[in-house]
């Protein structure tokens, strides 16, 4: 996985200055937070279901090898094929091989972040196979040659006028004077264009939100219906899934489904939840003749049994990024990786290496909203902190930061020294603050004071104030 996370700071600065992007990012706050809160509040058992879902997924991860074998056996029993890929290279090669055997020239794709992770489209393209994204958001960014900026709303960084310009540029067969300035008209035109593509495709590739061990089924959850057309009309259906997507039974699936849509879009249930088992049966009149499931590891097994195992509970709802003040400010592309936001800040260092992605776990205010809304209760701030510790251990931070940290650590281990230093610093800063009680410039703190004033301390430290109030309480 190629990442550009090392340029996070430059990319963020660009993002903050990008007016179009900033306008579009307003839709994240407006479009997701209130809806999720309302949906969660409307289900009295929501918090208890979160606990139960955590239990299901922890159980799955602790029995993962057994469940994967059971899943595989059940896919085979239903006439499907399971392929195992250790990494992105193997995953791409397996899919290309299936496409070649099907003599595929065109494949349609349902929305799949995992295909982004293994950069599948570029690989197919390099081998003369056209991959057509069919999810509206994915279709739009494919036209623009971009990557998704959000895991469930890939084009959330765009405004309608940008989409209109792209459609006018690419959809040349339409009347030039047509009106195309509403979400309705844009969706209508994409629907018309993509309808033909579904029928032309030789292979349909989808991801999988879940793999049901008891039945050998893959499950996709969508609103548009594109995933269903993708996997129903071509002769071959390939579902690409990472190994942690297992749920044991339909009861477990039902429980986690109650969280997924509510956390993602604030719906009680997404429009389409589709359970696919094997290829079409002899008497069936439609559906694919071949059903392939590609199980991808790509770094996940290395997280099992470590302090990062909890991240494998993720169901990719996007709630963490929808509620993240950093994501709201810079959008998804600044992260320079497939998975943005808090979950990306934890997954990317695991998949690409902390040396490549060290900025990401630092791009957090630790406000804790991501953990508060994560349906699977993944302790994202804690895991980001663990990455920071690893980064420190490996010496990846700049020298000045390391020296500053060492100094602070020394002081923190010597409370008398710390308090004395704090008293001196508070007095000096209070004096510097003058009558305005504000500091507009401060050495070593220009990162703060360049953009805004720092309120000056009152002159006493917290410990001094505390000691005084305790003293006053005594008779």
């Amino acid at each position, binding site marked *: 996985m190629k990442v550009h996370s090392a340029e996070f700071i430059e990319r963020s600065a660009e993002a903050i200055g990008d007016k179009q992007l900033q306008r579009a990012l307003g839709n994240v706050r407006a479009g*997701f937070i209130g809806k999720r809160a309302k949906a969660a509040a409307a289900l009295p058992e929501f918090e208890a279901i979160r606990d139960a879902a955590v239990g299901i997924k922890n159980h799955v991860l602790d029995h993962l090898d057994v469940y994967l074998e059971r899943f595989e056996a059940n896919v085979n029993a239903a006439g499907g094929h399971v392929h195992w890929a250790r990494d992105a290279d193997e995953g791409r090669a397996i899919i290309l091989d299936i496409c070649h055997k099907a003599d595929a020239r065109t494949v349609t794709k349902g929305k799949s972040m995992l295909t982004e992770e293994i950069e599948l489209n570029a690989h197919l393209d390099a081998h003369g196979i056209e991959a057509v994204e069919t999810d509206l958001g994915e279709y739009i960014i494919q036209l623009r040659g971009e990557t998704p900026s959000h895991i469930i709303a890939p084009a959330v960084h765009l405004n309608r006028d940008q989409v209109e310009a792209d459609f006018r540029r690419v959809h040349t067969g339409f009347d030039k004077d047509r009106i195309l300035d509403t979400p309705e008209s844009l969706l209508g035109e994409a629907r018309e264009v993509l309808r033909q593509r579904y029928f032309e495709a030789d292979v349909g590739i989808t991801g999988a939100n879940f793999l049901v061990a008891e039945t050998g089924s893959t499950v996709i959850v969508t609103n548009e219906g594109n995933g269903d057309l993708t996997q129903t009309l071509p002769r071959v259906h390939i579902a690409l899934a990472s190994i942690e997507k297992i749920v044991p039974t339909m009861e477990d699936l039902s429980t986690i489904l109650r969280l997924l849509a509510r956390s993602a879009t604030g719906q009680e249930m997404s*429009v389409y939840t589709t359970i696919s088992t094997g290829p079409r049966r002899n008497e069936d009149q439609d559906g694919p003749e071949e059903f392939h499931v590609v199980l991808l590891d790509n770094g996940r097994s290395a997280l099992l049994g470590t302090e990062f195992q909890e991240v494998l509970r993720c169901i990719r709802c996007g709630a963490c990024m929808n509620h993240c003040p950093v994501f709201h400010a810079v959008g998804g592309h600044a992260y320079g990786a497939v998975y943005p936001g808090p979950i990306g800040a934890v997954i990317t260092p695991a998949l690409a290496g902390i040396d490549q992605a060290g900025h990401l776990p630092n791009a957090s205010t630790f406000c804790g909203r991501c953990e508060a809304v994560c349906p699977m209760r993944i302790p994202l701030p804690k895991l980001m902190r663990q990455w920071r510790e690893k980064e420190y251990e490996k010496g990846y931070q700049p020298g000045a930061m390391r020296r500053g940290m060492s100094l602070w650590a020394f002081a923190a281990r010597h409370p008398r020294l710390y308090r004395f230093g704090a008293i001196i610093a508070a007095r000096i800063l209070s004096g510097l603050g003058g009558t305005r009680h504000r500091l507009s410039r401060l050495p070593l703190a220009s990162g703060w004071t360049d953009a805004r004033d720092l309120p000056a301390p009152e002159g006493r430290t917290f410990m001094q104030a505390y000691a005084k109030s305790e003293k006053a309480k005594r008779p």
Partner: protein
Amino acid sequence: MSSARDIILQRIGKAIEEGRAPPRSERESGAEACLAAKENVLVPAGANVSGDEAIALFTQKAQSVQTTIRHVAAISDVAEAVSQYLTAKNLPQAIRRGSDPLLDRAGWEAQPLMEVTIGPSDGSDRVGLSVAVSAVAETGTLILSSGPDNPTTLNFLPDHHLVVLSAARIVGPLEEALRATVAEAGPAGILPRIVNLITGPSRSGDVEQQIVLGAHGPRAVHVILIGDHPTAV
């Protein structure tokens, strides 16, 4: 040389044993016990409804996601309800349906002007008619299983998706409907190729997070609900 499969499974086994996972033999029995028990995890109290309550909740939830519902007394009233829907929507009197035997008794003979074709859709049909195997009251969700009589293309390609549902098949919680679907799959337990859970007409919020109906699937989902009692079918 070991296969990728074996290497991945070995890696997983080794890694989870370094965590808190029990040894392999206990993992096997633990997973087996979970798969055999098929226990409900946590059914919300509000989803535990049946009978008239389930019908009322299904109706309310389905309507809240823009599914429309028409009640009829018996299967023989379905053709008339279809015809009235087409008229109300200003559509030609033509539909495509699956060969489900239930629909043979829909009263087509009373609608001589309606063109009824049977089989999967090739994308040229305006209106498709399917039969739902069940429905979930808690979310207003229809459950449709693929099979020779119920082609999946009918659920997605026509602009209008009409679905016949027997009121007796409405259950409260999702797990009850899914468990019944697995149970009906027969002793081998192999599910139909596709089990569709459909909750309203297709939609997208991908342009500026504004929800628009009619993305790639149907623009309208209309349920023809038969009877309030099992004997109606």
